[in-house]
């Protein structure tokens, strides 16, 4: 990092912001982000120490994950760079089965001695817990892949882009929003690189290099006279891509209903910040919604979150079985509903696919965190529930012999477990654009971008807000609304889905930090869809006066 990297940067307030990174990660320089970690042969030698120690101590299975997790944040507000932080978290996690019970231990001493001791601790923990174990662990067969590797197919490594370039991009976006009258803007560039090495007693030695990128901002508009304030967030998506996502190519821009601009495989942050300031102003003076039943037209940057909460989570097998009962909850989509082969999760227009392979998605990896090669599979076909998301120690419960490959741990220091794959609504087969869809709606609301969200612990009842709400009257956009949230029940909602636009409108958005488990862990996952229509959904007015 050179002094000139910071020319024009007005200020840097390190430490003032809450960053979504472990306090145990080390702060390093931008150059150090680019230093390669241990080479594969060294990692293999170290991993073998863990595998051999586990075997010697009586473990019947072991896996060793040597992980180097790199993050970079560039955080700005208005004309200031508030913080630039590069972090590295490096260590090893060892998971074993002894006496039919899992045990796990982790250490940041990535040495033969450190790994040996941690492995011994993992075996001790497994044996202590086995005294109270009622159901011995049963693992689905998985072949060893030998020495293999996988990389996110990025075009531009974000860590190689000078910090000044990233900061300037954010500051330029901020300046555009302020020129358009924004009261405040906070913006952030968040880059992730997971360098993960996995080895198991099945004979796999898997080296992976995963990249994720997320540019984001919040434009706030304050109307002093009325005391009202509104916030318009960025129309970007967190992506499993490199810095090429910031290219903002013309072919990736979409002119949406209501005169809005949306983005697909690349994003123009400067243009979007300009629109955000204009729209935030309109949000303040928008008409407060009349509560009642509306036909909802939900745009993909909004619908992804409804899919995530009402389809992705209830179809996680660990939740269905009760393993998350004390925290995230269980699921209404019980095993008998799957076994009946007739449970109508949604209308015939509804098809959900899970995958860990979609290019550009947050969930894409070559192998999951227990060495299973990733794939795509059906969850809901023509509206009927056909499968769940499950990992090696669960699929036997479904009578299936093969893990779905969706096991993940947020770092070396946390134990891996079943996490959500990408779960996406398949586009409609008939040619249909969002404008054509809206033309068919008499009384409705077109909702853009995710907002407030909440769902019960069995995933029946939910409430979602959004960012932009447009009233639809007799097939036409009739102006902006505010104070909108819709409440529904998962099965009722997906059965009210009457149309999904075709694949020209298919886009992904996602969650960079989806929480689950105790201790809580974060997972990154994408959800694709095209714009979809839901008839007769209950809309409430969320306006209040203090």
């Amino acid at each position: 990092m050179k002094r000139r990297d910071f020319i024009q940067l007005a200020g840097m307030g390190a430490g003032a912001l809450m960053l979504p990174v472990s306090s145990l990660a080390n702060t390093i320089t931008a150059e150090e982000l680019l230093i390669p970690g241990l080479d594969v042969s060294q990692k293999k030698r170290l991993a073998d120490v863990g595998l051999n120690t586990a075997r010697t101590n009586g473990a019947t299975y072991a896996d060793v994950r040597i992980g180097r997790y790199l993050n970079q944040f560039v955080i700005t507000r208005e004309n200031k760079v508030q913080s630039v932080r590069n972090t590295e978290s490096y260590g090893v996690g060892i998971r074993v089965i002894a006496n039919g019970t899992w045990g796990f231990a982790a250490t940041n001493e990535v040495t033969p001695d450190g790994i040996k001791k941690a492995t011994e601790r993992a075996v001790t923990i497994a044996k202590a817990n086995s005294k109270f174990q009622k159901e011995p662990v049963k693992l689905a067969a998985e072949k060893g892949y030998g020495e293999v590797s996988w990389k996110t197919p990025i075009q531009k490594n974000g860590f190689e882009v000078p910090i000044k370039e990233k900061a300037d991009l954010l500051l330029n976006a901020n300046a555009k929003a302020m020129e358009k009258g924004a009261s405040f803007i906070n913006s952030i560039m968040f880059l992730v690189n997971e360098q993960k090495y996995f080895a198991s007693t099945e004979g796999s030695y898997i080296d992976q290099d995963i990249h994720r990128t997320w540019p984001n901002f919040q434009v706030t508009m304050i109307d002093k006279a009325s005391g009202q304030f509104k916030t318009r967030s960025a129309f970007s998506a967190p992506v499993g891509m490199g810095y090429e996502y910031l290219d903002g190519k013309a072919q990736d821009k979409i002119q949406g209903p209501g005169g809005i601009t949306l983005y697909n495989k690349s994003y123009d942050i400067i243009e979007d910040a300009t629109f955000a300031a204009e729209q935030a102003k309109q949000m303040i003076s928008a008409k407060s919604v009349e509560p009642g039943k509306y036909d909802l037209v939900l745009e993909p940057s909004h619908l992804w979150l409804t899919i995530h909460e009402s389809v992705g989570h209830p179809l996680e097998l660990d939740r269905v079985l009760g393993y998350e009962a004390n925290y995230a909850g269980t699921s209404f989509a019980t095993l008998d509903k799957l076994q009946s082969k007739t449970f109508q999760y949604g209308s015939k227009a509804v098809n959900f696919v899970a995958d860990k392979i979609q290019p550009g998605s947050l969930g894409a990896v070559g192998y999951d965190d227990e060495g299973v090669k990733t794939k795509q599979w059906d969850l809901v076909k023509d509206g009927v529930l056909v499968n769940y998301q499950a990992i090696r120690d669960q699929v036997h419960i479904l009578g299936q012999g093969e893990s779905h490959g969706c096991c993940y741990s947020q770092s070396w220091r946390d134990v891996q477990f079943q996490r959500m794959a990408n779960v996406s609504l398949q586009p409609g087969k008939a040619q249909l654009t969002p404008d054509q869809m809206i033309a068919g709606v008499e009384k409705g609301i077109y909702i853009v971008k995710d907002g407030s969200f909440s769902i019960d612990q069995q995933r029946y009842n939910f409430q979602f807000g959004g960012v932009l709400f447009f009233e639809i009257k007799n097939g036409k956009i009739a102006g902006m609304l505010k104070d909108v949230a819709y409440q529904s029940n998962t099965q009722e909602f997906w059965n009210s889905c009457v149309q999904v636009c075709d694949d020209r409108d298919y886009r992904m958005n996602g969650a960079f930090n989806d929480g689950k488990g105790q201790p809580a862990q974060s997972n990154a996952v994408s959800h694709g869809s095209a714009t979809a229509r839901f008839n007769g959904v209950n809309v409430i007015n969320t306006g209040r006066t203090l």
Partner: protein
Amino acid sequence: MAIFSKEESKKILEKVIAFSKADACEVNLNGTNGGNIRYARNSVSTAGENSDVTLIVQSNFGKKSGVATINEFDDASLEKVVRRSEELAKLAPENPEFMEPLPQQTYGESKTYFESTAKITPEYRAQAAANSINPAIAKDVTAAGFLEDNYSFASMMNTKGLFAYNQSTGVNFTVTMRSNDGTGSGWVTRSFNDVNKLDTAEASRIAIDKALQSRQAKAIEPGKYTVILEPAASAELIRNMLFNMNARQADEGRSFLAKKGGGTKMGEKIMDERVTIYTDPFNLDVPASPWSGDGQARKKMDIIKNGTVANMFYDRYWASNKNVAPVPFPGNAIMEGGNASLEDLIKDTKKGILVTRFWYIRAVDPQTQLYTGLTRDATFFVENGKVKHPIKNFRFNESPVIMLNNVETLGKQVRVDVDGGPGGGASFLIPYMKLRDFTFTSLSDAV
């Protein structure tokens, strides 16, 4: 290894400070030993331990500062991390919001550390889980629980002569009990600094009783109801409101404490005069570190006094900008209560709803502090002073500010740690409360 004593920390910190060539240097040395056990379906699912120590060095030249961290403590590593922070500081731009390190402060003593908790073993955790699972099996109920313990230390020193040290321990236990017919669910949470106060069998019995009593819940119409909230239900809403009492946001006009036409609601009455919320790091039920992460001394201080905004939180920069004393973010919060027990509150209720807990609470509108979420794990209909029957869960849309304007009775206080207690969250002492006109907007089929 992850825990350094006061003397060991001081020795390392002095070495680091001696390496400094910057205008000023501030060093934090923190470490933790943690352990946990998780069970579900009446069987242990995962268990683990972890430990880590981190040294954080911030050097500054004028208003240019740089931060570097390391987790090795030999002399060469210590010098390396100081040099790296100085290098980063020289490269950094001037930060107009940079504040010089504080001089030596006077801190009180807070009883945050208990040896009992520091000595928890994997065998203890396994037994604690068994004490919860076995009574569940006996009552045809399925247990899913989590116990997490933490032994940590934090220390800091700077070139202005400040030195601070604190050790703390904590244990957090939650369990969900579900009746095997799938129609009842109960839950309980317990958090302590001293593990000797934790009895997982006693706590589990309460959750089992709730699971059995909440079976075959009846649906009643959503609407505005008088509610009796257990402290675990209201704590997160109150926490969320306190988190939003930042002075800068209010001054900037983007807070529920900002006023129409400009200015803030500091000193104004915003809720029922019986509501008093204060922080006190020395409280024995919810002890907190006597100093904040930047070295400021924490003290007993009102936040809401008799319904009036008594203090907002000012970081050092914003305080200097506004020419007021800084107010560090509190490490705990205590809401004053009364003498009424839960039974007393039920006895005095003609018609109302008893809530064990709320869940999936999310902000709907920051302007009004409107939140939505749902009741969970045993909700009951109360009529003519008695618990009549379990009811199906409700979704609510309510603001803690409006809710605390609608106070009927405040009862006895209970400790609740929000966000998992040790390591993660903060401790709260919150009373049972009876409130009128709480807004439930829809029904949920979830058990």
